[in-house]
């Protein structure tokens, strides 16, 4: 699948040069002259990361970061700043920036930061995909099968489950087998791991 680095800078010369540099390193690059343009035009389904200047007229970098968080787009951001204010960099890192480079930066630093950001994006997208697939399979279960599942992953024995549900242990066995087939798992361990993935993610760190 295509991976795209979105470069955002209001300074056309800087924007073009960053785009070219990243392209010369083999990245797929899209350039935007403002955060607004990025929000309007980018395709949130395309995986990738953002490389942007922190201080821009209008919407600035930190505000874009917040806007993305609102849109549940967890695309990693690499900030580049002409002036490194400690306060701004702390805020950016707290909000999940991958790296914070100060102009003029080292080429290797930029490439490393972009690689790290893309890797982070890939990992989080894979997690998302798995979660989606598990959720999809969960949705095919009947209420009774779900009841059985929740007790199975809690480590309960068929006998205990039958007692709790007020049914025969044999019935529980049937439900359990059907549930495992629908969830496409062969082992209890796989089921438990998938179940933890579907748990709601821990709340995002509070915004500074």
């Amino acid at each position, binding site marked *: 699948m295509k991976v795209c680095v979105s470069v955002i800078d209001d*300074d056309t010369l800087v924007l*073009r040069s960053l785009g070219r540099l990243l392209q010369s390193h083999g990245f797929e690059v899209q350039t935007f002259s403002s955060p607004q343009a990025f929000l309007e035009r980018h395709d949130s389904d395309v995986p990738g990361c953002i490389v942007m200047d922190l201080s821009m007229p209008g919407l*600035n970098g930190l505000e874009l970061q917040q806007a993305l968080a609102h849109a549940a787009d967890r695309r990693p951001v690499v900030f580049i700043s*002409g002036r490194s204010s400690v306060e701004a960099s702390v805020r950016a890192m707290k909000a999940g920036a991958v790296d914070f480079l100060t102009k*003029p930066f080292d*080429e290797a630093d930029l490439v490393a930061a972009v690689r790290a950001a893309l890797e982070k994006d890939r990992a989080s997208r894979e997690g998302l995909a798995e979660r989606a697939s598990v959720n999809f399979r969960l949705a095919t279960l009947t209420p009774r099968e779900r009841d059985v599942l929740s007790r199975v992953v809690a480590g309960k024995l068929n006998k205990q489950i039958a007692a709790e549900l007020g049914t025969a242990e044999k019935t529980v066995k049937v439900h359990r087998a059907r549930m495992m087939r629908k969830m496409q798992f062969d082992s209890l361990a796989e089921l438990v791991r998938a179940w933890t993935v579907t748990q709601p993610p821990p709340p995002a760190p509070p915004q500074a």
Partner: protein
Amino acid sequence: MDSHPASSAGAAPGLTHPGWRFGARTTWAAPALLVAVGYYFAARVGFAFTLQPYPISTLWPPNALLLAALLLAPTRAWWWLLAAVLPAHLLVELQSGVPVAMVLGWYVSNCSEALIGAGLARAFVPWPLRLDSLRSAGIFLFCGALAGPVVSSFLDAALVSLVGFGERGYWDLVGTRIFSNTLAALTVAPLILTLASIQIPRLRAARTARYAEATALFVGLGVTCMMVFNLPQFDNHTEPALFYAPLPFLVWAALRFGPAGTASAIAVLVVATIFGTVNGLGPFAGSTPQETVREMQLFLTAVAVPMLLLAVVLDERARVELDAREQRLQLTHLSRVAMLGELSGGIAHELNQPLTAILSNAQAALHLVGNKSAHPDILMEILRDIIAADQRAGEVIRRLRTLFKRGETQFQPLDANELIHEVLGIVHGDLVTRSVEVVSELAAALPKIHGDRVELEQVMLNLVVNACDAMGGGVAPEQRRLTVRTRAVEDGAVQISFSDCGPGFTPEQYARLFEPFYTTKPRGLGLGLSISRAIIRTHHGRLWGSSAPGKGASFHIVLPALAANGR
């Protein structure tokens, strides 16, 4: 001053460095020789200005020359100079057949005159004496032109009586010598003193018009003196108004050419007057020789003293004004540099942008060429961008250099919109980092204004920085807006306004806003607005502020248009 006594005591003959001057390390051989030669010729002039057939010298310049040389030289060099004139004195006096004892006696009295004048003056004014203030001029007149000739004349007459030379009485000798030596001190010494302090480079830098004016002055003065003092008097009745004829020229010299010009003009008047008088021409001729000479000397002294003082006072005042002007320029420059210092973060950002672009472009090109994937079109694009970025960095530096420069105010036709563009370019980085949005409402086709680019940019920069500071704390970043407006107002004047949306100011604050050292900023000097107003005033314009409570502050500049300025 006397820290290197060895250098003068062990002075080698000849010059160790070209362009001698009376300084701490100067070798005294050359100046002493110069003074000796001058002394010789001055004595010849003194002899030439002797009224025949009665041997009464009307002007005795050698002593005045020696006086000036002593005043210009450090005290430890005096003996060199006094020793150097002895051969010149002997040479010139022995030619006229005067007894040796009398010649030596006159050497003593001549030297004592110069020593008394210079020694007394040095007690009041440290070396070197310059006719650059009323005080030093007064001290020179009192010590050099009065005390020296008077005191030494008693000695001189006593020596003459002792040797028994000539038949004139003691008091007659004293009187004659006082008048002729005072006149010489008034004529020759100021001329040498002022000419010695002339700065050659400044003289060279003077414009042709100035030389033309000086020529007109001296030709006019010369012709007038010829007409008044060098024509035979057909009747014994002299028109008193004639005496005043040279005065306008002397006042002209005092007003326009300083003490040096005035001293020169006085010298011309004195020489012309004496030349006519000793040749029996002009208004002073006619009565007895003693009376003729005395009247002429009184006239010349009475003219020379006030004219010299007038020139010195005018010169001193002009210099004080110049100093004040220079200080104002310095202060303006300093506050400009301080302001640029405050903006340095933003300026660094402005330089960082093109530098980043250049670096990234070059690295990209390096990669593309290394991978053999470089298309010539892409390389061309990259190189064009590098050039553009470099030019932008150059532009930032050019703007800065203009503002850092310290120079004289230079008026020229300017476009107010272009100035604003420049100023906003300088603060661009700062505006971005402070999240200040600029709204420009610039009127097209504004009349040109007349002003100094740097100073006007300084004023605008100051107002922009003030506006940004005002919006720093209390205003939310998305509401920080600076509005810049230009418009043509009546009489073709141009109004430039800067409006912020900060807290504004109260009438009480406004009353003090333009006072020096009044500031509302924690780290401000409080000079910005007072200097800005001074600058706008020298541009014949107005700078004022207005504020509606809670709606921010506005500052307005009105500058007269080019034509209305009358220049």
